[in-house]
């Protein structure tokens, strides 16, 4: 039922406004005035509360279910961090508030910059990018600014491993680059030989995730960075997988020049059913002149202040109207403060422990690991290629059937190079009991696949809807409710 299905013309939630007098200020020209009803719903407050409460109940979420969505790091979002960030003084602070009434906020951001520099081993951090993809944009734009600055305009290519997340190539293009894919070896590493073949004077940079989206740590990272650097390219680190190595290795130490972090992953800020995110970028000294503005500076006399293009004249500019997803940054700051350095060290450890445990247990019950000879990092891949052939049960079928068991499905069919794959990321905040429950569910789905495959292929059965017709959705576009 849509909210429009319960509306009635003339109805409204009258506690929410003072009735309007009818005199629109007469200097507003008639031609500029709206002369029809916008068509928002005409409903009561109770109807709104009931409708959206009921919609919420048609969602899986971390608070509701184990949600091992690989690459997305769906860990517990501490309620305390949200509470801290929604202090009335923070909520009511205007983005353009004078500095004299901004010191509390700015101090948090300044310290967060410092912590993120420490965590990543980078020389400077800008907090403004509003999600991972915007962080990537900022990073690649800085790579470009660097080459431009050095009049190195032959560098027109960004290299991307074939397992890369789609945002990587898309970002490269947004920055005016062409993309060239590097293959992956059978054990999940970047094919160093292939890399050496293509790297050269047209290479602006290489974008990499490490641990990669294959759920393994790129063992030859030092060589790789040498190859790229030697060719005059720069190295971009996609920090979506930072959870795996938090407090264990620093991207700066691996030789990366620039990176983004997904605070809504590693720093446990809620993803809100599609966002907001926050994707700060960190850079080595080399790229420090180019960071997106504003960043927070501190001056012993005057306190915290915004550093803008006056102080960072070579900045790639600002990426949003104000300073990015401030509220998410405050949550990340709160999370960092609660963890402390001790806690951060533990994140990578236990995320890795959970992933390796699950990988072992799933292999035990009969699933095929994509990289059985590798350590899992914070995530790992199983492939259902053989089940799919022998039983006609695909990775998607298993994913859908998991929903019936009360588990959110892992990421499906990503990375693209591994057939029928599920990318599984348990995160450190899940208990072993929860992991065991998932393994048990997977085992019984495998049994079902053998004995009653239709149960699996026709899944889900217990969700509010059965499988949806995606083709129809794209062909007979119905994106907004037509007016009556």
């Amino acid at each position, binding site marked *: 039922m849509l909210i429009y299905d319960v509306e009635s013309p003339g109805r409204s939630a009258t506690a929410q406004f003072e009735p309007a007098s009818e005199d629109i200020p007469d200097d507003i020209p008639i031609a500029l005035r709206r002369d029809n009803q916008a068509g928002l719903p005409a409903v009561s407050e109770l109807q709104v509360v009931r409708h959206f409460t009921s919609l919420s109940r048609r969602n899986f979420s971390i608070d509701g279910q184990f949600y091992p969505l690989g690459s997305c790091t769906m860990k517990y979002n501490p309620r305390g961090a949200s509470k801290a960030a929604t202090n009335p*003084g923070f909520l009511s602070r205007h983005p353009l508030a004078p500095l004299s009434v901004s010191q*509390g906020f700015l101090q948090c951001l300044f310290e967060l910059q410092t912590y993120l520099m420490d965590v990543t081993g980078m020389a400077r951090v800008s907090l403004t990018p509003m999600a991972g993809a915007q962080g990537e944009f900022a990073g690649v734009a800085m790579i470009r600014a660097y080459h431009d600055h050095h009049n190195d305009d032959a560098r027109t290519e960004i290299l991307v491993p074939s397992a890369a997340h789609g945002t990587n190539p898309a*970002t490269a293009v947004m920055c005016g680059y062409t993309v060239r894919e590097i293959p992956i070896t059978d054990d999940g590493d970047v094919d160093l030989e292939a890399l050496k073949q293509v790297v050269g004077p047209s290479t602006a940079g290489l974008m990499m995730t490490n641990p990669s989206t294959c759920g393994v740590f790129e063992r030859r990272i030092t060589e790789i960075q040498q190859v790229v650097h030697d060719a005059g390219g720069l190295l971009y680190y996609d920090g979506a997988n930072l959870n795996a190595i938090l407090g264990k290795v620093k991207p700066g130490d691996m030789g990366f020049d620039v990176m983004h972090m997904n605070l809504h992953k590693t720093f446990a800020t809620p993803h809100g059913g599609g966002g907001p995110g926050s994707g700060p970028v960190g850079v080595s000294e080399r790229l420090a002149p180019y960071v997106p503005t504003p960043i927070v500076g501190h001056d012993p006399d005057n306190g915290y202040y915004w550093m803008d293009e006056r102080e960072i004249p070579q900045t790639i500019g600002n990426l949003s109207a104000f300073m990015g997803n401030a509220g998410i940054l405050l949550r990340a700051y709160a999370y960092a403060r609660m963890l402390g350095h001790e806690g*951060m060290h533990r994140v990578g450890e236990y995320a890795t422990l959970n992933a390796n445990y699950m990988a072992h247990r799933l292999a035990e019950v009969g699933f095929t690991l994509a990289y059985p000879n590798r350590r899992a990092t914070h995530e790992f891949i199983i492939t259902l290629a053989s089940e799919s052939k022998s039983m006609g049960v695909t990775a998607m079928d298993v994913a859908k059937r998991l929903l019936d068991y009360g588990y959110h499905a892992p990421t499906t069919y990503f990375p693209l190079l591994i057939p029928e794959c599920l990318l599984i990321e348990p995160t450190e905040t899940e208990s072993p009991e929860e992991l065991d429950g998932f393994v048990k569910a997977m085992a019984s789905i495998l049994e079902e696949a053998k004995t009653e495959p239709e149960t699996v292929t026709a899944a889900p059965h217990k969700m509010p809807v059965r499988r949806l017709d995606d083709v129809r959705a794209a062909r007979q576009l119905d994106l*907004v409710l037509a007016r009556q």
Partner: protein
Amino acid sequence: MPFIPHTDADTRRMLDVIGVASKESLFDEIPADLRAGHLTEVPSGLSEMALLRLMSERAQMDQTEMSFLGAGAYEHHIPSAVWDITTRGEFLTAYTPYQAEASQGTLQLIYEFQTMIARLTGMDVANASVYDGGSALAEAMLMAVRANKKARSRRIVTAAGVHPHYLSACRAIVGNQDIEILTADLDLQSGVTDGSSLATLTDQSAAALVIPLPNFYGALDDVDELTRLAHNKGMLVIAVVNPTALALLRPPGEWGDRGADIAVGEGQPLGIPLASGGPYLGFMCCSQDVVRQMPGRIVGRTVDLDGRDGFALTLQAREQHIRRAKATSNICTNQGLLVTAATIYMSLMGDEGLRAVAMQCAQGVRSLQDQLIEIDGVSSRFTSPAFHEVTFALPCKASDVVDRMTRRGIVPGYDLGQVDLKFAQCLLICVTETKTPADIERFVVEFSQAIESCMSGVATPC
């Protein structure tokens, strides 16, 4: 261990299953010389109690009594129900609705959002949000360049008075794709676009004309005329609008003869707190013709195996996870939770409520204006009518007035000297429905005192 449930026994048992002796062994594929990660700048952990106290002390430092700042972010009443429901775990802690069957709540809500925002702007369709108003405009420019195949132009012209921060974000975002942004001059009398300047700029072919309503200085352009001009020259029209204003003002879908082609804006006024600038949401609407050029998530209504209505992400072939280098944008995570809040807000306000709010904004600013121009040396800087924000010319530096009044607990508005030195004596003041007549009265008193002491060069006592 905050947020980690493992007991020592758990860890032991798990290591045994894996067959390693210690957690350290799990990292044995990482070259030893890289393993370090010692953190020196991160302090020790705090309990939630200590954290909340720290953060509440910090937040209190930033609290003011009253603010008349607008300039792109607006203080409106937010019904309590909005965030009570938005922060339900099921909305707050879900990821992007990749598994449609387990995400019908979020998906249907986005469909309702798309419907509401498309109706409010008078456009055919909408997407599920981009980051903010500024980046929405940048995406709209990229989209226009892709969509306007006839024009074969990588130039974008803007009317005067597009939010300067939006413009600089656009430059940063579209610049690497060789797109040029040209801006018409502001008519310094009226506060809207200078016609002849725009005429010159549109002489050459361009992909689109950007038209703000209201503009950054609070003023209202003749959007019909500008839209016709652009369409006549083969340009698409990109509207940048304040959604609250659309309850009173003509929606982009009705501008000129066939409406704007793309409409974007900042969704913050729709139930989202000021919160230092984000998370907000950029909305993005367009006409049916160009929907396949629109970036970002889009939800469609479809049916399930039993023929029941259901909702799913659609047109994914535009997106990075499918199309990779050929995608319409690199955007992935957007501002889903803010869409949730805005949808609940729009449902609670309805046409009647949003119109009432818009009306009170417009009336409030008129009342303030009437009183301020009585003060010696203070006048409205521009002649154009305004919605809820007005540029005032002061007899002294706006920054001084801001300083003085802020010390007295009132942030009086935005010092336009920050965006243009020629406006150093101009203050952009915003009134919303949150300001009572008594608030306005207090403002006027404090304001005239501030002006007076600025003029006499007296330092205000703290």
